[in-house]
């Protein structure tokens, strides 16, 4: 899919660099042993900055829900319409979720609760982004 390319910054560079190495990492607070996503400058729960690091996760999850996009304002995605847009919950913590186009899956026929695994897609500027496929 012709996605917009994320431009990393100091806050999230660890996440995006790991994507380029085809590894999925999530920001983790060691002070309260909690994952958070998207990344923040401090732990949302306890406020710790020093305790934040990038924790590898399994890259496995389930489909929480989805929609089918017919009218997006994002120009790059308009030629692809209609397309699936799912919310994927991570196995390590269902409170952490990510978006996915579920490449290869039939349009508007997705199993809520279905199992998925991560893959990585290269965008226009070379930055890889996490995607998910049904398993």
């Amino acid at each position, binding site marked *: 899919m012709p996605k917009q*390319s994320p431009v990393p910054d100091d806050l999230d560079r660890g996440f995006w660099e790991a994507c380029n190495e085809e590894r999925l990492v999530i920001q983790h607070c060691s002070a309260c042993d909690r994952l958070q996503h998207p990344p923040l400058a401090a732990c949302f729960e306890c406020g710790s900055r020093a305790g934040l690091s990038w924790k590898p996760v399994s890259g496995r999850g389930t489909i929480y*829900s989805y*929609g089918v*996009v017919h009218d*997006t*304002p994002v*120009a790059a*995605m308009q030629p692809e319409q209609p397309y699936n*847009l799912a919310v994927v919950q991570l196995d390590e913590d269902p409170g952490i979720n990510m978006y996915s186009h579920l490449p290869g899956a039939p349009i508007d026929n997705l199993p809520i609760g279905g199992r998925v695994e991560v893959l990585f897609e290269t965008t*226009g500027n070379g930055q890889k982004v996490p995607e998910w496929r049904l398993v």
Partner: protein
Amino acid sequence: MPDVNIIRTPPASMYRDKEGMGIWPHRGKVAAVGIGHAPTARRWDERPETSVGGLSIFALRAAMADAGVTPDQVDGLVVVPDTTTGAYWPAGKQVPADFLAMYQQTDDPLDGVAKLSPEWIIKNMPELVNLKVAINAPTCMSNAVVVAAQAIGDGLAHTCLVLKGWHNYVGRYYQGGANAEPTVSGPGKFSAPWGGPACYGTAQQFQRYMYKYGKTHDEVAPFVVNSRRNGLLNPDGYWAQHRPEQLTADDYINARWVAKPANLFDNDIPIMAAGAYLFTTSERAKDMRQKPVYFMTTASDRTRARGLALTLEEVEEATASTGRKLYEGSGVKASDLDFENMYDGFGLFHIFHIEGLGYAGIKRGEALDLFKGDISIEGPNPVSPSGGNIGNGRTRFWLHSDSIQQLQGRAGARQIKKPVEIAVSGGPTPTGGNFVIWSKSPD
């Protein structure tokens, strides 16, 4: 300019965003009296008087006249500074000369055209000679409403104007700008590449809702049809003023998808509009032209999504908590609500709002069953008698206007047929919103 204390950000202490705060100390001591709505339009025609600034002045003066209050009696002003429907003033385009000639400018050349500051209103309404305090209340009329009520209760002002204006320009909203770039920076980089439109978040929540409770999108039709009907009974609404077209269930069911399961009529129509209220102390309200409608409590939600996407379960917990806060702060029970005007732009989350409140005795997963019965203004359980954004265009203020008018007994053709004493309204979204319990009586 009068010497006005301008509060840029309302302090957190103005919001009742936690459970366990007890009865609101100002319960029954603050009242809504006057309402002013400017004429609506689909887009700005670039005449100065129809700019968002021009419409706002119209609405503010109308609210004072409606209440029978002279401008010198007003000592407070709460302004929502954000006015965009998602339309942005094109970079490099000059503000029309007629606008610059008609109005006093502030340091920001787009003030009055693409945003509103208290300074712009003060400069262009010199009749507000006794204004003492002006407060910026970002984003939404519901925020401005609860801030104004708290300000009056706290004694920051005794007679307060409350304003929300909207601008909409030519073109499709949210198109262009960052959405047309090949790259994305900032927090949007975790969502924008996947291209979800604004209604997507609600759409995926509703998809989960259908899965969880065994419901269908078609079952929403009676709500949307009822909302358009109610909106067409509001002479101030966009559809009544410009496109008086009833909507049928078939129209709704066959409408094009935006993000399935959210279709065109689950989204509201962006418009030019301005709405204003006059609030005051219950004591002063006695002498004004319209009957007072009393604030029983305010409540606010500050839920933050744990992940990227807000889940249905997070929404359900937030709306239930809002209900508990409203009932605790007001002393009112769910069964006391005679009608509800919870926010509906997007229409689908109206369902989550009213289930959280337990309106008309419903529990989780039962809102669509309620919609199968009589939810009209003639029936026992009126749903969204204002018509909301769905029936009137996007303003996020019809809900409060209607709650006030219904309890004043002057909702005209929309007047609910049964006697009404207690109402609830608020929004915008189920999380992050601000809400009010209203009463015909201060006790």
